[in-house]
């Protein structure tokens, strides 16, 4: 097991009676890219602020490299932070913005010039040092902020929704660039985002947060393929949740007398009520009735080019979301009855 560079132990933070972070335990490993993912108000930014030292925990402690830094002010923690608004100093040049952390560390002038030059080169802005931040585009400002946080080689860099302010196209470009830079520097990174695509694409591990707690912590694939809770299944990717009663260790009765075979990691207890999630891209249109095939009535269609999003309703009224890859095998129309195949291995048993 890799060493924890940052560790939160039972961290709680209240804001006037509202619990933003609730007894949180989290270890960030050396060199990893860890995302804190969740909807707004889930406590992800507060968690970041706790690590950065901008707010202090109401209870619990924070360790950096095994050393307790709880109560230590932000300027003594030596971490790098990139803000959503970039927070570049408008009265300083790009060069001086990046040099800020080195100057505060009283690094000699010659070395400052060299290291700022290297950092600006890393983010491909080596010719922009003399300009003011306001003269740069949003994407460039973002890269200056990154260079500024990396130049003094902090143990950890904390990124607070750094891509949120960019438009879609630029965001995608910056995403791959961010990952490349992080890999080349090899720095331990904590990344806060509400965007699951960003988290899935960038992270080594994702901590999905809800109401101040971590719902699930794991690799992107693990989170997507095996969501531990209904919240995670809902929040990451689209999914359909089916409710049913177990009639055998691997059989679930849904939609009246129809039953589905389930290949989940644990055996079901007969008679137990369970919730199963299935990804819409795993549900297939079947040519006719068969094993694990249920009939459903199409309620809505959203054509998206590469695929069509189909909303259908089972006999017992449960709704199912299906992504049908275009071109569809049969013409689809609202009101039409289709046969849906639910592969036994595609079901995810929710806690």
């Amino acid at each position, binding site marked *: 097991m890799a060493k924890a560079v940052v560790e939160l132990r039972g961290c709680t933070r209240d804001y006037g009676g509202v619990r933003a972070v609730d007894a949180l335990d989290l270890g960030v490993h050396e060199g990893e890219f860890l995302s804190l993912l969740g909807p707004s108000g889930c406590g992800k930014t507060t968690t970041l602020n706790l690590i*950065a030292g901008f707010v202090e925990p109401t209870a619990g402690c924070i360790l950096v490299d095994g050393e307790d830094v709880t109560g230590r*002010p*932000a*300027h003594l923690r030596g971490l790098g*932070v990139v*803000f959503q608004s970039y*927070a570049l100093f408008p009265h300083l040049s790009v060069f001086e913005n990046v040099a*800020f*952390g080195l100057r505060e560390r009283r690094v000699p002038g010659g070395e400052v010039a060299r290291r700022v030059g290297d950092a600006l080169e890393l983010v491909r802005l080596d010719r922009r040092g003399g300009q003011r931040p306001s003269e740069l585009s949003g994407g460039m400002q973002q890269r200056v902020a990154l260079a500024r946080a990396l130049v003094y080689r902090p143990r950890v860099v904390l990124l607070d929704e750094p891509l949120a302010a960019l438009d879609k196209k630029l965001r995608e470009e910056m995403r791959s660039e961010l990952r490349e830079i992080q890999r080349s520097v090899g720095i331990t990174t904590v990344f806060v985002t509400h965007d699951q695509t960003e988290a899935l694409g960038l992270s080594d591990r994702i901590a999905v947060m809800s109401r101040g707690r971590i719902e699930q912590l794991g690799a992107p694939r693990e989170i997507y393929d095996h969501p531990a809770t209904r919240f995670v299944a809902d929040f990451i990717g689209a999914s359909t949740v089916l409710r049913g009663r177990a009639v055998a260790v691997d059989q679930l009765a849904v939609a009246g007398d129809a039953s589905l075979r389930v290949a989940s990691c644990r055996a079901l207890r007969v008679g137990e009520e369970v919730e199963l999630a299935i990804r819409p891209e795993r549900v297939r249109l079947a040519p006719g009735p068969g094993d694990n095939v249920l009939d459903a009535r199409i309620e809505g269609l959203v054509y998206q080019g590469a695929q069509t999003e189909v909303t259908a309703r089972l006999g017992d009224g449960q709704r199912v979301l299906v992504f049908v890859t275009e071109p569809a095998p049969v013409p689809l129309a609202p009101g039409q009855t289709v046969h849906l195949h639910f592969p036994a291995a595609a079901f995810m048993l929710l806690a």
Partner: protein
Amino acid sequence: MTLRLVVAALVAFMTLPTVVVIAVSFNPTAILSFPPAGFSLRWYANVLGYPQFQRAALNSLVVTAAAVAVALPIGTLAALALERGRLRGRNLWAALLLSPLVVPGVAAGLGFLILAAALGLLRSRSVLIAAHVALVLPFVVRSVWVSVRNLDPALERAAASLGATPWRVFRRVTLPLLRPGLFAGLLFAIVVSVNEFVVSLFISNRVTEILPVAMFTYVVNYTDPSIAALSTLFIGATFLVVWLADRYLGLGRVFLQH
């Protein structure tokens, strides 16, 4: 067209008294008549050579400089406290800090007079300075407050995360970014203090009186165009200060921000 006429009329209405004063200041005769009968600089010479005006000008300089030097830092801290501080009754504090704007000069002057008399400070310039601090403070607080509001707290957090101590954050980030507000406050304070008359009249004597008070005293006793000449110098100086500030410090930007 009508709109343009209205604006022209307004401008004329506002500037006419100034124009009259400037014109009269060049009058060669010893009467305050308009239009002037000729052109002469004798009243300027008279004003510049008049000892009481010289003394009052020096007083003005000292009082304004001292008042501004005290009010600027205090006002800046007050603005920071009002915006950032965990202050109970923030609105009440703000109202009190800005209250000299709504208190009539006569009332404030009387108050300072009674206080100064009670403290036995009536002969000293310190009362005058204290009064001017109180009078210019609202302008400083207002101007700096605007800049504090426009300051993104993330900038200060960023500086702290980069290793700056709270004092260094203030020096390298907060203060430079408050500059527009500080300059606007400085300018307002100077203009208000230099032109202050009513309160100063109550608490100054022949030795400590500042220029506007000396001018008033002069007008009470004499009616030659000297006072018009001095007014013209006054207007010119004020105009110069504002123009320089706008030119080099970008005063316009302070008000057009947001």
